[in-house]
């Protein structure tokens, strides 16, 4: 299997040189294959979100390198990294990060705005993904009127709408009920079968049980990497 993502001696220090300096990720080296379902586990504050931010090119590493398909993307300019995010990465944030001024379907279709897709087509594509996540009836609701679980599924639909090769999800089932967590899990399983690279930070045993690779973090350092047979 082709290596999709390679992390090489990756470190991230916030507030470097200041009194409140924090090293969130410390010398992480790891590899994630093309159709891996990778989970990043570890207690709160272990650096899971930071590692996902680094892989999602949302922040630059203080040290080390990130490779996508063999190319070192961590040295790319902001514009090129944005292009990579636009074309290759879908991100599901723990806090959903939806825009309140837009309705559910409009939020889902946001990434399509910079893909030259006209409104009607955007709506059509967004509704398709919303249907898959059982959100069709909520399409015209402002996101503020949706439950946490519904907002999480909107965030997942938004991450999928441009059909990205890499999907990053930060604790997608942390703030949802069991039933919603189960429906999210089914969507994730389906994505895995579509030969996408899934990287999920989670504490959820049901998600961990589906993973093909598990990276355990403690204080920003990888303590254990386990690879499971599919």
């Amino acid at each position, binding site marked *: 299997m082709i290596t999709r993502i390679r992390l090489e001696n990756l470190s991230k220090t916030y507030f470097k040189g200041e009194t409140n300096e924090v090293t969130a990720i410390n010398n992480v080296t790891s590899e994630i294959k093309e159709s891996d379902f990778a989970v990043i586990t570890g207690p709160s504050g272990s650096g899971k979100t930071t590692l996902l*931010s680094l892989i*999602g090119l*949302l*922040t*630059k590493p203080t040290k080390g390198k990130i490779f996508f398909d063999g190319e070192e993307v961590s040295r790319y300019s*902001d*514009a090129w990294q*944005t*292009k990579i*995010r*636009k*074309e290759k990465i879908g*991100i599901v*944030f723990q806090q959903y*990060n939806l*825009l*309140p*001024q*837009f309705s559910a379907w*409009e939020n889902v279709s*946001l*990434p*399509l*705005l*910079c*893909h*030259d*897709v*006209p*409104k009607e087509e*955007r709506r059509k594509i967004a509704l398709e993904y919303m249907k898959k996540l059982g959100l069709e009836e909520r399409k015209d609701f402002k996101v503020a009127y949706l439950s946490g679980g519904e907002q999480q599924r909107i965030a997942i639909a*938004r991450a999928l709408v*441009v059909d990205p090769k890499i999907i990053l999800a930060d604790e997608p089932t942390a703030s949802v009920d069991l039933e919603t967590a189960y429906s999210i899990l089914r969507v994730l399983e389906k994505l895995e079968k579509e030969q996408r690279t899934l990287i999920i930070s989670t504490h959820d045993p049901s998600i961990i049980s589906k993973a093909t690779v598990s990276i355990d973090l403690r204080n920003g350092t990888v303590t254990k990497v386990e690879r499971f047979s599919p």
Partner: protein
Amino acid sequence: MKIQRHLNFLWFAVNSIFTYKTRTIAITFSLMMALMILGSVAFVSGGLEKEAILSATFAPDITVQYLQAGRQIPISMNNTSVINKISGIEKTIPRVWGYISQNNRIYTIMGIDPAEMPIPKEINFAISSGRFLQVQDSEVAIVGRHLAAAFALDVDDTLILYNESDHPYNFTVVGVFTMEVNLYAADLILVTVNDSRKFFGITENYATDLCVYASDQTETRYIAQQILNDIPGARVLTRQALKDALLSAYGARSGFVSVIWYIMLLAVILVAWNQASAVSAEARKEVGILKSLGFSTMDILEIRLLEAIILGVLSASLGILLAIIYDLYLGAPVISDFMLGWAAVYPSFPLPIHVSVTSVVILYGVAIFPLLVGSLVPSWKSAITEPDTAMRGG
């Protein structure tokens, strides 16, 4: 189709404007009010400026007056021969004018020599009904439009004026000036120089002004200098000097207009900057989210640019519309008192309003530019920040 992306961003911008109603209303209202005042002043000032320019058009190339103890007194016609000796002079003709008070209003009686005075082609635009003075005319007058209205005068009616000795003089109205020359002619009664002399009791050897016409316009300044040298104590005004004086009194260069413009411009900039750049952690977070979804810095700036343009155009359009209503239909209360304070004892007349393309363009610029800067700079700062930091509101 590349245009589609821009249409998508326009959709985003419009959606944001309608969603953040409080912010939109605050910006639109503040800008609209500021633009209304600016526009109102600009349009009145433009009208006055236009009238001043038109008024100066009717002035002679050079006007020579005589001063004694700093006050204007009649000038001897003997000076005509002195002036005519200067090379480049086409002719020098007398003009006799003065003020009269009638019904607690002050009017100007201006006596000219229709046989000698060159009649500019613009005079056709200055007379709304009737005709201009003719050589054989006697005891006839052309009156300002508002004087005509105040005395219910029309062509062929008789205007009775009383001089300082309360002696009545009858003038037949042969023409009425247009609104276009209100600044100059609202209070004007134009008669022949002989009638004016009789009315004011000025002998034939004297005039109020000597109107000098040069054969070559480019020599006017040189001739004016020569007249000053040859007639000590004379006040010599070129047409250009008169135009400049009128413009600096009533036009954009007048103190009041400048002060209003500077204050309001500063207010507009502060309001727009404050409203647009009051970038909350929420707004910075939005930029971070958009970047995480694949929006480039340029995409984000385009969205903010569209928002600023829509808000600026909307505010400016409403402000300009209100300014026109305020000036044209309400008579620009308060502003007119400042700008036409001199007219308190003159016949009242509607403010001259001139809505020029230039002033409209400037007003739109004044509304849009500060908004653009106020929106784009903070957005650009957020957009060049790492998405992770921006999403944390940093």
